[in-house]
């Protein structure tokens, strides 16, 4: 960093006692960002700040995605009526500790957040027709107990395998725990063949959780329309290709596909949903 300032906040808001939701841009099926976007749109959230990119990204140019030059963004949104703060961000490439502590400084000092949630997708071999699970990793026992009424799987054991690194969400939850802020990593297993496209059912599972827990009054109509549209597209594919339908049926009953089948299913679903 060449300067001291890492965060820009604008406007004023009554933020005390808010809940912070964190979504990373680089997520399978863009689950985190799509969930954040749905909440932002449904609840009429407004942008109120950002973490500045210097010191966290290499600044060696820009990436071009879908014909558009993309620059790293790390933006904070406030939903005034529901006391939600939503943070949408590109995953920093360096200076992770400073980045996360900057976010936690805002969460703690400016917003006095009472809980933090991170959103993420896990890649699953389950079929898209299977109800979505919601898995949590918590940084303290009290918040684990508070999740019990919401049908969340909360008893997983895991250790980072050799050669891999913990997720940034785990790092954030751990740092939050050091400050006494309860934090939850929420994970939804997404069918692997929806990873390159999108999985609105998983988005709905996450939005439904927040709606239930915090009485947000979210209107699900738009999301249900997207889900119905995706169902129709896949149904049409099934009509054209009984083999694809059979592959999905196999996944529904827990049978494994071979490599060629897995590849074909992913390819044809991606083409059908374009």
């Amino acid at each position, binding site marked *: 960093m060449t300067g001291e300032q890492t965060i820009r906040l604008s406007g004023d808001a009554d933020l005390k006692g808010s809940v912070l939701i964190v979504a990373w841009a680089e997520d399978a099926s863009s689950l985190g960002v799509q969930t954040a976007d749905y909440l932002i749109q449904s609840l009429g959230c407004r942008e109120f700040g950002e973490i500045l990119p210097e010191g966290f990204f290499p600044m060696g140019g820009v990436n071009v995605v879908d014909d558009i030059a993309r620059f790293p963004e790390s933006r904070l949104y406030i939903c005034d009526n529901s006391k939600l703060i939503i943070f949408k961000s590109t995953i920093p490439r360096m200076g992770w500790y400073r980045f996360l502590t900057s976010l936690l400084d805002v969460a703690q000092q400016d917003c006095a957040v009472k809980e933090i949630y991170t959103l993420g997708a896990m890649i699953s071999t389950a079929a898209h027709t299977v109800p979505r699970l919601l898995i949590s990793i918590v940084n303290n026992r009290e918040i*684990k107990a508070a999740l019990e009424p919401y049908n969340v799987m909360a008893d997983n054991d*895991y250790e980072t395998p050799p050669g891999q690194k913990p997720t940034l969400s785990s790092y954030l939850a751990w740092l939050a725990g050091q400050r006494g802020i309860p934090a939850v990593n929420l994970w939804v297993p997404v069918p692997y063949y929806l990873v390159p496209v999108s999985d609105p059912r998983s988005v709905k599972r996450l939005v439904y959780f927040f709606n239930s827990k915090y009485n947000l009054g979210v209107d699900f109509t738009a999301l249900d329309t997207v889900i119905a549209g995706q169902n129709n597209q896949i149904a049409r594919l099934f009509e054209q290709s009984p083999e694809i339908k059979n592959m999905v049926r196999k996944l529904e009953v827990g049978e494994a596909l071979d490599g060629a089948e897995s590849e074909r299913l992913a390819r044809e679903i991606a083409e059908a949903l374009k």
Partner: protein
Amino acid sequence: MGIRYIKEAGLTDPVMIAAWPGIGNIGLIALDTLRRSLRAEQMAYIEPYEFFYPKKVIIRGGELVELDFPTSDFFYHRSGRRDLILFIGEEQPAEGGGVYATGSMAYGMANLVLDVAEKYGCRRIYTSGAAVAPMHHTARSRAWAVPNAANLIAEFKGYDNTVLMSDIEGRGGEGNIAGLNGLLLGIARRRGIDAVCLMGEIPVYLQGFPFPYPKGSKSVLEVLSMALDMWIDMEVIDELARQSESELTRLYEKLPDEIKQQLDRLKDSTVAAAESEDLITEDDKKKILDDVDKFFKHDGGGEQH
């Protein structure tokens, strides 16, 4: 944020020895062997957060119970005559995600290590790493010594099995020491502290593989023993070296004959390098590396560890 002291060690005229991971983990193995044989106790550590991404998360029953970071620990040993501070870094803080430290984090880490050296009045610091050499793994590794001041040269010229950069054929006394093993020498000089990097030789064809090379570590320990005028128990490092050579020989036997013949030419190269210019050329070296790399990564992929 910085150094955390676990205990105040009263030390007399200490010398610091520091090591980080690198090729063959030569410095790290040397120092860890020394630490164990001396039963050195931890005295301090550098807080990891500014330098490292976590390396492991442990989750039990859905609860995040532990997040582990690479360690950067200081140990001490009191001998009554010459005390030691040992610094062992589990990773080098690299901004670009490489193996060797670079950038402001590397500079920051080096300065914290030197802060401890200065606090305890260390007048000399050793770092330790690997010297990639055109040698065979059955040959004895030498130690290359690179001091940060001219007045140290005479001392290291006098030690057995120890060479300076100018003794290495074709180098003309020049070279580069990557990462913190080198950076520490430069920053120590700025602070007026004598420092020497001791690099154990590793065969050129092993530089790209994740094999430890304890024979190189032994050469470093031998120089340290002379420089510190201190007996160092070599039993453990000898055993590690025997195991390593046995494993390398087992892999070597599986190499195609053509590659083995090329590598066999290295058997005498270290000794003869000063006299023979055509024993192994740069082109030979490149071909050997390419062939060995190809064998381990493709043809002999099943044998790679």
